[in-house]
């Protein structure tokens, strides 16, 4: 059983990479940015970590590692621009056989443009051993909507897309993740006669290393706009309730802190772009205390 799953995952990964090797048009609507402060603090290298509700969009297979119910909300104003804001809300719960997650990402340019992406994800274990090795898969459906109402332009359009993800812990100290989003690469049309804007298919894979319960080191590579981009991050745990993070994401350097108390999680991260300046992300979340430990394995 275990060998079959590993083979299946390897084949799926190779197939997805082959798909991603083809050139893709650039994407700007709903272009990726770190959705939550913890992921941002890790340099957005989160596909192999995926152990909070951000997993709904980062790696839906990671939902299997979450507690019975968890929720988080994030707000940021990119580059300190007063008229541009981004919000992210995600929640995850579990049933007897499945893990469910829902997320809503919103980007708004005041009085001009609104971008919304609602994601519904499910995940389940394919394999879990007594030695804390696991293999899980996830799938997601995205509903994207973009509307504009400014300077004589008044239009909106929507599309549905899908994604797949794999999360693996072959050893307790190693995490591996892979996710592909916008598999059908739909196109949004807001101006008649134009070619519209495709939501580009993206591929992300990553690996993370866990040292006892004190440190996470994460690396990932993402295929966006036809090119691979690398990012990496590290999280240090102080006294199980305080977290310090740092990461690099191409043009960004990031740093963040987090605290956990009675199931409440507060995270703040600053992402500094080499030219555009800093963006500060604030996230507040809730997860039952026993599973707030990001290194814990699911039961």
């Amino acid at each position: 059983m275990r060998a079959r799953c590993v083979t299946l995952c390897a084949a799926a990964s190779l197939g997805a990479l082959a798909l991603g090797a083809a050139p893709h048009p650039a994407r700007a609507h709903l272009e990726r940015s770190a959705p939550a402060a913890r992921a941002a603090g890790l340099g957005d290298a989160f596909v192999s970590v995926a152990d909070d509700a951000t997993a709904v969009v980062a790696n839906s297979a990671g939902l299997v590692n979450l507690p019975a119910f968890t929720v988080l909300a994030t707000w940021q104003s990119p580059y300190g621009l007063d008229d541009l804001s981004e919000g992210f809300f995600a929640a995850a719960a579990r049933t007897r056989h499945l893990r469910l997650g829902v997320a809503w990402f919103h980007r708004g340019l005041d009085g001009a443009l609104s971008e919304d992406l609602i994601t519904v994800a499910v995940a389940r274990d394919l394999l879990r051993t007594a030695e804390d090795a696991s293999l899980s898969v996830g799938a997601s459906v995205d509903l994207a909507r973009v509307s504009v109402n400014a300077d004589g332009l008044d239009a909106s359009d929507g599309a549905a897309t899908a994604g797949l993800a794999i999360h693996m812990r072959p050893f307790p100290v190693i995490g591996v993740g892979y996710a592909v989003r916008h598999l059908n690469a739909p196109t949004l049309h807001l101006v008649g006669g134009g070619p519209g804007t495709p939501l580009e298919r993206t591929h992300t894979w990553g690996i993370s290393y866990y040292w006892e319960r004190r440190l996470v080191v994460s690396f990932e590579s993402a295929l966006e706009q036809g090119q691979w981009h690398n990012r990496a991050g590290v999280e240090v745990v102080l006294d199980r309730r305080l977290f310090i993070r740092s990461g690099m994401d191409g043009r960004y350097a990031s740093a963040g802190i987090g605290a956990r108390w009675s199931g409440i999680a507060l995270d703040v991260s600053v992402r500094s772009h080499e030219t555009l300046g800093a963006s500060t992300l604030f996230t507040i979340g809730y997860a039952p205390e026993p599973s707030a430990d990001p290194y814990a394995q699911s039961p």
Partner: protein
Amino acid sequence: MKSRPALLALLVFLAPAASPATTDDDLSRRVAIDGRLDDYAPDEWILDATTAPAELPNDSRWGGDADVRRVAATWDNDRLYLAVDAAARDATVMLLVAYGAGGVRRLEAAGPLRRAITCEGFAPNLLVVAAPGGRVDVARVDAGGALQTLSEGEIPRAWKASPTGAVALEVAIPWTLAPPADGRVRVLAVITGDTGSGAGDAAPDPTALLPANPAARATLDRHAAVAADADADGSPDLGVSPRAATTVLPPGGSRARTGVSLGLRLERRAFAPDLGEEVHFEIDADADGRVYVTCTVYSVSGRPVRTLYEDDARDLPAPAPSSLDVWNGRDRAGAIVPGGVYVVNVTWGEARGERSGSANASVAVVR
């Protein structure tokens, strides 16, 4: 012990003789406009080898033949006296004086020069130009930017050269012709030479060496600010030390100018390039002087899309509307970018390649 009172008495006796010269009610009997510089007291040499910031190493590419050694300034109730002590064999010596609003920054506007020169941080409105043959022209820049030649009767002047290449230039400028608007007179001395003869020199030195290639534009970004009317009561301050009243701006060690603030305003929030639309933007400034501006468009995730221009020179505080300040929604390859949110970024610095500040504005591309 007995010798101590005597020593103190001697010091008190000698003290007046050692005190610096100060501005006085009438200096015309002491300071003659004759090309001789020995009538200026040590404290009236506002720029010399001891002035901070120090001269740049190898600042004069002509060696001893092109060097502004000293600049003197002093004043009385009626006139501002300026003098330049230079080594300038077969070279033009200029004194640039700014006393109020207006003025020129590109000195080519003053007539044919041997090299293109731009002043940063001040705009001279009185130009004293001494050609190698000994002719000294003085011109004033009126509020409209036009040059008005002033006669020797209006502004007395003198030029004297020695066979060794030493040059002395003197002028006496009536306050009625150059009333300091903010209580300060700004002064800069420059030497330029023939094509192929090198970089020339300036005092105070600019923050970077002048280009050795005479075909390259020289940028003079420092000047001496002389607080001749520090209390701004409309009358020159008397009894003050000119040297103590002089400040070199900007001070040495840093090119950063405090208070520089640029803003970016886009004329619209969204545009459709497929319909032939484009977005114009304006750069607002809360500063004066020249800055070099670079404008780049980024996607909202921080990916550079296109650099619209790089190190474009803008004269603040009122940069002229530029045809460059427009984005047609295309990337560097000429293709229209995908729809979404983009960030227009301008960065600026006081020298090419320098980035001392930036401003962002966001716009939506609709397709």
